[in-house]
């Protein structure tokens, strides 16, 4: 009897671990192994000898500081802009006005487009004789000879062009997460807010936003992670090295340089380890600050 209940409780305790075991094997093979290999590879030269040269190269890379700055500037500004706009649009859709469904559908179209298409579209639009300038001219915002040279390649215009394009492509997915969260809220919680003295703004601040906290956390984390990895759209718009970011440098070295000189492959590995460390620290920091590790409050 005793041994029976004992063995039963062992099974009970072991069950969750047995259930996640396949996932762990999968991760070990397809995720952890390449990650460890990359980590490991960054510390070796082509002859298999331990070296710190790859990291030295990264830190002495004349583009490294620029890449750090560009990456963070673009990430912070674009995530902030995207969040504010996506949140506003979600509130709008959540009013459930007539045609909200159609609006949501149209707004999500950018999600279906590949980066290449987005880049081509915006390139055409931002060219000196592109549709944006002709639009601005037709609505009378600029003179015929006052065309704005968006694609000049100067640093600040390029950064803002990238932020605008990124926001345009990413807002829909953020909006969908936020709309889903809002539609899950019991409408009466907000209505109680209005009855008990709240204005639209106080209800938003004291009820809607706090209740959406976990949704907002999810949306922001997903966005921050992908914003830090921005590169494809930049490369498609401006090519390599004109607006370097951490990941665009990584790709540049492994894709453009390594075929001719394999040591660049080891250097790209060092880059990727640095990117991975930065992203994980930011995610952990963010989760800590947003209070997601505290259990009780999420009730």
């Amino acid at each position, binding site marked *: 009897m005793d041994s029976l209940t004992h063995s039963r409780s062992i099974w009970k305790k072991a069950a969750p671990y047995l259930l996640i075991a396949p996932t762990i094997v999968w991760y070990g093979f397809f995720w952890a192994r390449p990650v460890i290999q990359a980590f490991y590879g960054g510390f070796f030269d082509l002859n298999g000898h331990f070296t710190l040269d790859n990291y030295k190269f990264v830190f002495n890379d004349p583009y490294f500081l620029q890449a750090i700055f560009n990456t963070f500037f673009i990430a912070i500004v674009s995530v902030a802009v995207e969040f504010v706009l996506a949140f506003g649009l979600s509130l709008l859709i959540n009013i459930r006005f007539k045609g909200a469904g159609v609006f949501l559908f149209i707004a999500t179209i950018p999600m279906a487009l590949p980066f290449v298409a987005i880049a081509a579209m915006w390139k055409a639009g931002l060219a000196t004789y592109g549709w944006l300038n002709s639009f601005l001219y037709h609505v009378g915002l600029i003179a015929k000879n006052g065309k704005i040279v968006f694609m000049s390649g100067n640093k600040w215009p390029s950064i803002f062009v990238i932020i605008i394009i990124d926001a345009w492509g990413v807002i829909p997915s953020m909006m969908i997460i936020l709309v889903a969260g809002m539609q899950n809220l019991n409408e009466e919680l907000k209505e*109680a807010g209005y*009855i*008990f*003295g*709240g204005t639209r703004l106080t209800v938003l601040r004291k009820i809607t936003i*706090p209740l959406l906290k976990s949704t907002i956390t999810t949306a922001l984390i997903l966005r921050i992670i992908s914003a830090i990895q921005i590169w494809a759209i930049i490369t498609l718009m401006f090519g390599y090295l004109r607006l370097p970011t951490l990941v665009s440098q990584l790709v540049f070295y492994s894709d453009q340089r390594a075929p001719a000189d394999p040591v660049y492959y080891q250097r790209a590995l060092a880059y990727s380890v640095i990117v991975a460390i930065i992203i994980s620290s930011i995610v952990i920091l963010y989760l800590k600050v947003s209070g997601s590790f505290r259990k009780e409050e999420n*009730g």
Partner: protein
Amino acid sequence: MADLKLENLSKRFSRKVWGVKKMDLSVKDKEFLVLLGPSGCGKTTTLRLIAGLEEATTGNILIDGVDITDTPPRKRDISMVFQSYAVWPHMTVYDNIAFALRFKHLSKAEIDSIVTETADMVKIDNLVKRYPDQLSGGQRQRVALARALAVKPKIFLMDEPLSNLDAKLRVVMRTELRAIHQQTKATTVFVTHDQSEAMSMADRIVIMKDGVIVQIGSPDDVYFKSTNVFVAGFIGMPPTNFFTVEIIHEGTDIVLKHPFFELKLDNERKSMLYDYSKRSLTFGIRPEDITITSEKNNLLKERALVVEPQGSLQIIALKIDDKIVKLVSAREHTVFPGDMLFLTFKQNKLHFFDIDTGERIGDL
């Protein structure tokens, strides 16, 4: 302290769906008014219109004679207990109750004393530091109640606040809510679909059907003088039994003729049916007004089909002309299924209704 008036109030949701239609109602100061009706009859819509959560299609809402039809909810001086309670899960009980008070330019000490006082009143004073997910359903409901009481509103609205509680707690809360009302004297509109809840709590009952008021009256009024077949069938448990009969003149007598019985009316009843001679009508009799009698006095006899003992009472179901008829009798003699029963109706408890319109004939 306040009175509430609804004038020609309507809410149309779409071309075909009316939540409430041309409603006129006045709620007196300090009154405990109950809106009663089956699901979908417009009770919640009425309450939401009063609260300002729904925009009226036509008509006006007045509190103390002041038109508040276009006033936002927060300026209406009302408070509400939602059916889902709508207690905010991210705030402690204390913060839930204090929420509205913080908009009122009160000092911390004043807020604290009001919160303590109301938490006390609904017996959750020991729970104020908890979050709602650490409370039972009944306790959460008390939080919703305290939050609504704390603002000392002119009008107190409650939407089926007891419907999510277990049967026993529900009955306890009825008494408690009435006691709180005695204490606060706040004009109250209480919504329920449960007729026994309405009967036991209301000063007056408003019975609704399909967005329209069917009858307004005291619990006794709606029970003893039901205005139509719908009310007579909705109020009371078990509900009124209905029979379709023909009115036959036999000399100076008037007889209600049914395939299973013939009921000769007394003089008072006769005068009520003066205009209805030689026509059919519906008559109703409540379960407690069908009495078991001896064989020689019987109006009709039938075997008991099902018997539900209820302590000192028993509910007996039998079949007359293929329709289930229920009667309630004392347990002096316990009846068993299959027993032959000799029955008669109390003449002065007969209710007559027009067979076409269902409206009551003659008022007692």
